[in-house]
């Protein structure tokens, strides 16, 4: 035996030590050379002739002065076909290149900015949808942002001049900050400048400033433009100098209310009785001498309207009388109706007559 199992080389003691002046036993010599051969064959040769048959403990570590290409898998300082197992921390002085996959089961701490380059997906991939980057500080968008995580309440802070696109998929609520300048918050009051809204649905407009509407020919009413309103109901409107049917009200002065004429007629009561002009009058009934009924095209709202009748004289008397709601034949009152008013023309103390000019107007 040459080694004692603990790495100590032991000389075969048979015939040892040799004594001066004596014959050295061939047996002892041969045993010695055999031990030496066994010992040297068991040792590691520095030129690499020997392949170790067991793990070699290096109590003081391994130093190598070999300088090779670190990216070359056949010329590195340590080459192994079975991988390298490291019981404690691995400290790489410069850079480490992983040929296939780097798996980290513990916490990976980056004390400097990690750079992801030439990625297949151009971005880190989180196979667990509920995991992602979590940072206690503020990261810029090109650094992944702060708290960019799915399905968790998080705060995204974006600063600097970064072109950022926020793409939201799924039914999540994103609350934007109440920014005063550049962001529109859904629930807060914001001022939008030079925005084009395409087909917006506006339930109501509350405006304290200037609201400029587009020049529309059909569906919009401009404040200063001329528009035709169809089937509009105006409740208690205040009309300033309205232009209604040939400016009938354009010259009105004072604040007394106006009650327009509801019906009128100018007719000739002599000869062939004929209507010269009328408004809201469908016909005139000639009941007899100086007795007429004005029939309204559209009925009055009630019978409490006022009838004003004037007529020309009979050519001989100045005592012309006109009456309303009276039967000139019987002298009895004729109750007014909403659709007609009966009038009479006559001469005081003489009787009825047919005037050439009879004017009737109705107000309500």
């Amino acid at each position, binding site marked *: 035996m040459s080694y004692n199992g603990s790495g100590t080389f032991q000389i075969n003691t048979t015939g040892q030590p040799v004594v001066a002046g004596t014959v050295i036993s061939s047996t002892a010599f041969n045993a010695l050379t055999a031990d030496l051969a066994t010992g040297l064959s068991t040792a590691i040769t520095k030129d690499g002739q020997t392949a170790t048959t067991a793990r070699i403990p290096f109590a003081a570590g391994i130093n190598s002065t070999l300088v090779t290409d670190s990216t070359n898998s056949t010329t590195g300082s340590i080459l192994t076909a079975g991988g390298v197992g490291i019981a404690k921390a691995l400290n790489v002085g410069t850079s480490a290149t992983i040929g296939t996959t780097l798996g980290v089961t513990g916490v990976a701490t980056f004390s400097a900015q990690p750079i992801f380059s030439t990625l297949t997906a151009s971005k880190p991939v989180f196979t667990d949808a509920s995991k992602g980057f979590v940072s206690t500080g503020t990261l810029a968008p090109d650094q992944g942002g702060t708290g960019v995580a799915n399905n968790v309440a998080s705060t995204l802070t974006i600063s600097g001049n970064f072109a950022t696109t926020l793409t939201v998929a799924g039914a999540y609520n994103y609350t934007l900050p109440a920014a005063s300048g550049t962001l529109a918050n859904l629930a807060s009051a914001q001022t939008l400048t030079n925005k084009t809204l395409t087909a917006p649905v506006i339930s109501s407009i509350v405006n304290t400033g200037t609201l400029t509407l587009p020049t529309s020919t059909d569906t919009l009413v401009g404040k200063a433009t001329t528009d035709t309103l169809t089937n509009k109901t105006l409740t208690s409107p205040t009309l300033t100098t309205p232009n209604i049917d040939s400016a009938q009200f354009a010259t009105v002065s004072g604040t007394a209310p106006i009650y327009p004429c509801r019906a009128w007629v100018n007719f000739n009561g002599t000869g062939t009785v004929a209507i010269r002009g009328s408004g809201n*009058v469908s016909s005139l009934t000639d009941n007899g001498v100086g007795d007429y009924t004005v029939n309204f095209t559209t009925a009055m709202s009630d019978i409490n309207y006022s009838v004003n009748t004037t007529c020309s004289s009979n050519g001989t008397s100045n005592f012309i009388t006109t009456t309303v709601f009276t039967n000139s034949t019987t002298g009895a009152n004729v109750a007014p109706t909403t659709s007609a008013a009966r009038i009479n023309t006559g001469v005081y103390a003489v009787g009825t007559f047919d005037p050439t000019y009879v004017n009737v107007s109705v107000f309500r």
Partner: protein
Amino acid sequence: MNQRIIYPNNDGGVAIVIPAAECGLTIEEIAAKDVPAGKLYKIVDVADIPTDRTFRNAWEYTT
């Protein structure tokens, strides 16, 4: 309109309805609206109405 509507009034005389040309109604529509309900009426030419009204209250309606 050169037509008139005549019907007997309640006093034994005759009422003559003169249509208003500006009302936009036809003579038939005016008759239906302005002749009292239940009264028989007749649409006549204006030339058929006497122009001398001296005895206007004595005019009578004949069918």
